[in-house]
């Protein structure tokens, strides 16, 4: 070690390495005392680091078709608001909506019943329908006066919040698994309807309006959820139908401007937002490594 021979003078001895004390290669172990400093950084440092293991690759059309589920529900809410505005501002008869709503509900029920998804008997369904309708009829005077003393400005604000929460908590899942309790979003929407109903003039219009709201927010989501698991094409047709109806409603209450803005919103939700999400995927940076808590694999019993 002490001799400072220059390399050309040194004669190789039986293939020994020029290094006087050959170092063993570093191992990632704690129980051996290795001839390396404690802060040594090996080339294998972070070699077990994995990036973006669980990142899903989205396809544009899959995302776009999934967005129709959201569009369909948001259209329902928009349609309901249009209905309220034409009743409140343009003096349309609410009974008309109750009749058409009940008509579509019956069609929906028979389609659902015909395709064999019915577990309860028709008489039981009929009985509960009669019960709900008569209860609603009896309660209408009470519901009408419930928030009558509240000023209109507060009513608009409350109903906007309730509808926003309804859109947020709605169950958009496609499969049979339910993640959010569906009653929460239904309750929020019905409360919004009750709050708005206090602005109407007669008890009969309150009854008709609430009946329509129950059909739209209580029964229609069940049908729509079933339809999208039964036939996605059917769901697309239903969504297109809803968009057209909502567009007509927008045209009636706000003219071409409202119609155009709503169309732009629907198109951006269906086409621009999925593209944006895919474009943002390149910023995804998930880190996985041996330090992550392991996922235990248990046998199902």
């Amino acid at each position, binding site marked *: 070690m002490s001799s400072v021979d220059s390399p050309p003078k040194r004669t190789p001895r039986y293939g020994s390495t020029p290094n006087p004390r050959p170092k063993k290669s570093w191992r990632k172990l*704690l129980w051996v005392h290795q001839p390396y400093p404690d802060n040594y*950084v090996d080339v294998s440092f972070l070699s077990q680091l994995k990036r973006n293991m669980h990142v899903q690759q989205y396809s544009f059309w899959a995302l776009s078709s999934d967005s129709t589920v959201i569009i369909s529900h948001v259209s329902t809410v928009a349609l309901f608001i249009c209905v309220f505005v034409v009743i409140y501002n343009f003096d349309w008869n609410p009974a008309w909506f109750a009749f058409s709503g009940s008509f579509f509900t019956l069609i929906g029920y028979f389609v659902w019943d015909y395709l064999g998804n019915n577990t309860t008997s028709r008489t039981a369904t009929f009985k509960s329908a009669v019960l709900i309708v008569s209860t609603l009829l009896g309660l209408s005077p009470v519901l009408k006066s419930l928030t009558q003393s509240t000023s209109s400005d507060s009513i608009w604000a409350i109903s906007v919040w309730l509808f926003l929460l309804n859109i947020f908590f709605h169950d958009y899942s496609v499969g049979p698994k339910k993640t959010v309790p569906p009653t929460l979003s239904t309750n929020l929407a019905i409360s919004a309807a009750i709050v708005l109903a206090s602005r109407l003039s007669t008890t009969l219009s309150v009854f008709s309006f609430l009946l329509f709201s129950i059909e739209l927010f209580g029964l229609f989501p069940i049908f729509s959820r079933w339809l999208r698991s039964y036939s996605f094409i059917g769901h697309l047709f239903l969504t297109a139908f809803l968009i057209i109806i909502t567009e007509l409603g927008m045209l009636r209450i706000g003219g071409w401007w409202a119609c155009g803005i709503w169309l732009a919103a629907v198109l951006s939700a269906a086409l621009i937002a999925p593209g944006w999400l895919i474009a943002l995927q390149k910023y995804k940076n998930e880190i996985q490594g041996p330090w992550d808590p392991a996922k235990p694999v248990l046998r199902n019993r």
Partner: protein
Amino acid sequence: MPYNIAMVCDFFYPQPGGIESHIYQLSSKLISLGHSVIIITHADGSRSGVRYLTHGLKVYYVPFFVLYRESTFPSVFSFFPLLRNILIRERIQIVHGHASLSSLCHEAILHSRTMGLKTVFTDHSLFGFADPGSILGNKLLKFTLSDIGHVICVSHTCKENTVLRASLDPNMVSVIPNAVVASNFLPDPGKASSSHITIVVISRLYPNKGADLLTAVIPRICLLHPTVRFIIAGSGPREIDLEQMREKYQLQEQVELMGSVRHEDVRDVMVKGHIYLHPTLTEAFGTVLVEAASCGLLVVTTKVGGIPEVLPSHMTIFSSPSEDSLVTSTSRAISLIDSKAVDTSKFHDQVKGMYGWHNVARRTERVYDIIADRKNEPLVDRLKRYYGCGIWAGKLFVMCVVLDVLLLRFLEWLFPAANIDRVRKWPRRPTDRALLAGENDNITKVESEDEESGLADS
């Protein structure tokens, strides 16, 4: 050159735990090496003020509000006046913080840097990157470690984790493992039953410690090996699941649930067994594995975190964190013990050579040597480091540091350092270091090789 060192951590005796005993053992070994060490922690009930432990290890129990699981309320600045007083009084040169969940430690590191002292941080645990709690914790870790002198991690996996979490230069992170007091974990082959094989589990019964795996595995192993006994020590939220499992499969004969045991009784439980089963899902080091091997038990463990680094392959049987794999590995361990194919009697002496607190203290001392001579950089350079922590966080951190500097100026005016009493040092036998060096010569040869390799300055 002896240093005056302050260990700061929320976790210290009288609460039991791994970090607590780590700080105590390291401090007492550093004292043996001739340094002066104090420990700063929060008050525990009525235990408030200054206490002395063996060898003049002084503990400051600072009165602070305990927020959650023995962590103090993170108030950023309120600790500064008291900390400054203690640090000046004790003439501290190096502040050594422990555990990333201890807010006291983070505050102390920040204020010590403002006062121009040298800082070291030891990380004892692993954290993920995905959940909101970890994201926030990692940001705070980045804040305090932006201007740290050196970082110590307990395993190589822990080092990788910390380097990523706090965006550190890997050269300023040293790996110094935990150790065990081997004499407290002596094997006693007479205590274990000779008629049947006993499997010991000592673990807090939490989901992240693999309690669910344990519950699933026990009935299957008992079915495969009807003579095997289990001793399970520890408590936690999953204890009830274990009890239900024992009822359901009628295993009262085979499975003994002890509840939690104190650390000093762990050895007495361990020596009753032949195999130690460790089904954890995350672990930075796994001191309990070393303790079990020291007691002469064959270790069956899941291969997660830093565990693969801890023990040589002839002492351990690794398994993946799945029910089937754990059953297979345990069965293999049982047949190895049954056929006496593995000699566990030598484990104790081997472990004694691998892990010792004296070795840990000497390696820690080397870390102190690196940072002790380093010049403090000007405030602007410090601020630049904090500024780089993030778009919003960087600005917030810079504001905190500037406020800290102003607070220090104010404290210097209000309580001038000249008015603070300096303590007298604890009287010390001059031969301590020489004695220990002599004692240590006969431990292992590998350690002497270790001595030669100095820590490369980063």
